[in-house]
């Protein structure tokens, strides 16, 4: 797959691998991200992957734009022969109760589905982490079943509770901390998404696979969940 190098700033280059949310494009981004990360290039300060692009922030005092691009290209051209990065499958327990699934009833009405059907559609897929952003550890997961695809709330909440599992468009995510937000909330997880004690700080990383597993309220509370 061809990649396009463009200037982002005097100290960063952005690589485009495509223009849409596409598992194949995302795979290319992930492969490049992991190859560059493993190469540990001195002077590459940041590697930021997203859906179809990857940015490399470099030390402008030791690298030129062309020099940075050549370095990246030489690593990536070899990466093409590497096996795909082995990503982990992370299971996230979710309590899908009406007391925490703040928009479950709204979604039932909007989609003409029962709560059980919505939960079943949400837990049946294995999702891929396309990007992390918005807040530390906030992972954009795709894609949810088309029958669940939904718009954002017209009036975003000022405070979405920590651990809220939510959907918007064809994506799903967990709010790592209480924050404002407009995604529709289905449930809540007791699992921390971002924690100083985690290796790599964030539970999820770009390229990981994620499954949601329904749990009871009792289990949610036993695992440290807060209502």
């Amino acid at each position, binding site marked *: 797959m061809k990649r396009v190098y463009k200037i*982002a700033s005097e100290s*960063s280059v952005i690589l485009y691998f495509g223009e849409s949310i596409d598992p194949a494009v995302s795979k290319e981004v992930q492969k490049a991200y992991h190859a560059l990360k493993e190469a540990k290039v001195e002077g590459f300060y940041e590697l930021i992957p997203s*859906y179809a692009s990857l*940015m490399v922030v470099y030390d402008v005092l030791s690298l030129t734009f062309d020099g940075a691009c050549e370095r990246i290209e030489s690593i990536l051209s070899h990466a093409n022969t590497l096996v795909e990065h082995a990503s982990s499958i992370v299971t996230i327990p979710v309590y899908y109760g009406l007391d925490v699934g703040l928009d479950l009833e709204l979604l039932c009405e909007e989609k003409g589905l029962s709560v059980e059907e919505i939960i079943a559609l949400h837990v049946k897929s294995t999702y891929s982490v396309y990007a992390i952003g918005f807040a530390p550890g906030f992972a954009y997961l795709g894609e949810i079943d088309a029958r669940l695809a939904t718009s954002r709330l017209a009036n975003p909440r000022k405070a979405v509770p920590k651990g809220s599992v939510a959907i918007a468009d064809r994506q799903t995510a967990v709010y790592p901390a209480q924050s404002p937000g407009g995604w529709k909330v289905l449930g809540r997880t007791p699992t921390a998404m971002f924690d100083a004690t985690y290796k790599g700080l964030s539970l999820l990383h770009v390229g990981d696979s994620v499954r949601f597993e329904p749990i009871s309220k009792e289990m949610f509370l036993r695992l440290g969940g807060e209502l």
Partner: protein
Amino acid sequence: MNGFLVQNGGIQSSIQDMGRQGLSDIGLTQSGAMDELAFGYANMLVGNTLNTPALEIAMGGVVLEAQGMMRIAICGANMQVMCKEKVLALWQTHILQKGDILRFAFASDAQFAYLAVEGGFQTPYAYGSFSTSLKEGLGGIEGRKLKAGDFLLVLAHQNVGEKRKIQKAFVPSYPEEITVRLLKGYQEERFDAEAQRRFFGSTYTFKGEGDRMGYRLSGEKIVPSVTGILSEPICYGAVQIPSHGEPIVLLKERQTIGGYPKIGSVIGVDCFKLAQLKTGGKVCFCEVSLEEAHRATYAFYDFFKKIGVC
């Protein structure tokens, strides 16, 4: 214990260094000093290295009580800092004694002032930096702006260094009209020749809409040929143009990814000038080549390197 007892935290004061690195891929913002020039000068004056945490004071209003003898320097916006009924001059060192009270009034010329102390503040280190990220609530003092009752620890010094001062010729001025250099990139082709002509030919006004994350500018509206793009990584200085047509320059506490089209990026060393622009100030953009942008950046950091701060 030496340090400062905070009697008043002011409008928004926070501990900052040069920011976090290497964690944008899990969504952590860079953060760090909004004006690296004033920040760097303050550290240089008290003999610190460039990446030593200092107190960033936005707008002013801070009152601090020294708990011991310290050598300090204050650089940046002029906040008429009073100590023992005298105004402390900016851009030079001062020796404080136990019990001295520093009162920062409100800046009229720029936005940020930096208080550096010899040896640096010994505040908590989080995720590779001392910087406070206010939006994320991490780093610095509990991830928030200072408030009355906070204590800023400083290692006690037996001997304080000599008096130092930045030569007048090197002291920056904070004009009300600035021109910042922009390197085209990202979705520049989404802005046609007419849109670009208007963008580079206009004077924008900073109406105070902004914070450490970024500044929105008011003026000539530019319409890109797309309203949104697939969310992609955002760099320091990126100029995004949402559907309202007015540019937003993303600064130190920017989000790591976002979905608005961007015409390019203000070069880092000019972002410091923009950060200091007072409300009502005017901004023009001028295009630079990649070579010029690199030269300007190199000159900036090389200066600190030469004087032994880097």
